[in-house]
């Protein structure tokens, strides 16, 4: 075999698979978004019609709003709280890996099971209401997934619960990169543990915080299973996110062109977020 083609031979399966099942669909999605297509008849060119429809559709704006709200609530929580979890499981104690494992468990659980599990916890006469009533936080049971003003936040809580362990591990890597001597000096000077976290740990973790913000914001834009399993977009479309909107229009309404246009909008948003976050990450890493 001529030596020059050897590297390409190694790459053939990957290029063929990713070409056919990622790059080609990407072009396909763009093409479909400029057409009318219901999977039965041949696609018909429709220019910018689908995008025009999108901008006039209150349901699209609602989905976009919900996705952005999701982002605004979930990303700050997932960028900060796991730092404390990481500090907690970074202690050198017997059995600490058991706790790490337990905190990580939701990450490996399929979202269908997670969704059903929380639906059961959220039941109106279920265990969460009982506990909150027990400690006096609420007076009457709340139908978490059925009250329009509450439901989206209830779904967000599940996303947060699921993601905690994943981001904890990233911060754990960050913590292990901080030189121990910093803490020794602080200990000698009598700086309290809490102040050590605020003035040593968090500043040293800045590049990791930026990274977690990137990953969690992209993940927040892709929320689907939680919504599908727990609320199916209801009540009153209050939990319809962008991905749910794409799914509904594509595989329930079979309005493929319209769904693709919404998909492109989703991609554009993810892309902007990634670039924005990448610039941010670079800046903080350079500053270090």
């Amino acid at each position, binding site marked *: 075999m001529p030596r*020059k083609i*050897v*590297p390409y031979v*190694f*790459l053939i*399966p*990957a*290029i063929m698979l*990713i070409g056919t099942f*990622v790059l080609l*669909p*990407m072009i*396909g999605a763009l093409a*479909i978004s400029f057409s009318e297509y219901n999977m039965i008849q041949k696609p018909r060119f429709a220019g910018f019609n689908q995008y025009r429809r999108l901008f006039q559709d209150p349901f699209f704006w609602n989905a976009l709003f919900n996705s952005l709200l999701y982002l605004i609530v979930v990303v700050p929580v997932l960028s900060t709280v796991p730092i404390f979890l990481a500090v*907690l*499981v970074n202690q050198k*104690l017997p059995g*600490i890996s058991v706790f*790490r*494992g*337990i*905190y*990580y*468990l939701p*990450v*490996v*659980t*399929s979202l*269908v*099971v997670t969704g*059903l599990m929380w639906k*059961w916890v959220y039941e109106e006469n*279920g*265990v969460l209401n*009982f506990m909150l009533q027990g400690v006096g936080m609420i007076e009457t049971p709340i139908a978490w997934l059925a009250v329009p003003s509450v439901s989206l936040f209830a779904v967000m809580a599940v996303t947060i*619960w699921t993601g905690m362990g*994943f981001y904890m*591990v*990233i911060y*754990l*890597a*960050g913590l292990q990169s901080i030189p121990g001597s910093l803490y020794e000096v602080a200990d000698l000077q009598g700086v309290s543990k809490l102040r050590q976290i605020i003035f040593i740990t968090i500043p040293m973790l800045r590049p*990791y915080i930026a990274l977690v913000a990137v990953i969690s914001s*992209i993940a927040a*834009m*892709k929320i*689907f*299973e939680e919504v*599908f399993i727990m609320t199916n977009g209801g009540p009153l479309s209050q939990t319809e996110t962008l*991905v749910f909107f*794409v799914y509904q229009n594509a*595989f329930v309404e079979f309005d*493929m062109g319209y*769904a*693709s246009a919404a*998909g*492109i909008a*989703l*991609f554009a948003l*993810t892309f902007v977020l990634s670039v924005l976050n990448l610039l941010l990450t670079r800046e903080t890493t350079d500053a270090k």
Partner: protein
Amino acid sequence: MQNSIFSTAREFARRGVQYAVLLAVACAFIGPFLWLLSTAMKSGAENIFESPPQFIPKAPTLENFGRVFESLPFVTYFFNSAIVASVAVICNLLFCSLAAYPLARMSFAGKNAIFLILISTMMLPFQLLMIPLYSIAVTLGLNNSFFGLIIPHACTAFGIFLMRQAFLAVPHQLEESAHIEGVNRFQIWWYIMLPLVRPTLATLAVFTFIGVWGDFLWPLIILDDQSKYTLPLGVNKLAGTFGKDWRLVAAGAILSVIPTIAVFLFTQRFFISGALKGAVKG
């Protein structure tokens, strides 16, 4: 002397507080699982909506698990999931490590462009691709088949990235001496490189397994034929058909996660190290 007793007691109290905090947080994560398990083990005679909720079933029973198998073909779903996940794991290990090797260790025209294009596909949301992907699958006659289910998972940019990082860390001398001996590139890849990156292969394997095992959206779209259902679709069907029967749904959900949890327990260290390797480079 007295001083040391005092400090031992203090040390003891500190430990106590540390474990109390760890345990309280652990409850928040494992609590819902235990509540689900408790519900699955309650008999029909016990009120599952009782107030206060009973965490320990009065007469623990496995009958609900039996009922799951009577209601839906869960054994079939289990085998379907196992086949799909195993084949996806093998494909990923093979194709990703093949592609990653030249990207890490050879110089050739278009190397950077190919790497950049492959890696940038990580940014494309699957939900955007699924519409044309579905069209392609239908055109190729791959809907309702395991082949169609597996193929979008068969080679991922994440896997290529992960393997490339691993190959980059292998010392060059090993390869060079093999080269002088007249061993070809494929033999070097198979006999020298792959054994050296075994931990990363294991990481990729467990990540792929857990990901594909829990995958829901793509199977939901591509499978109509219920005999091809994987476990997440089966559990969803169980919840859709017997939604009010929480004992049954809970038992089905528990059954479907047992394999994942088992795999996780034995491979925990690969998850921790893998999340670091994949997400955080150097």
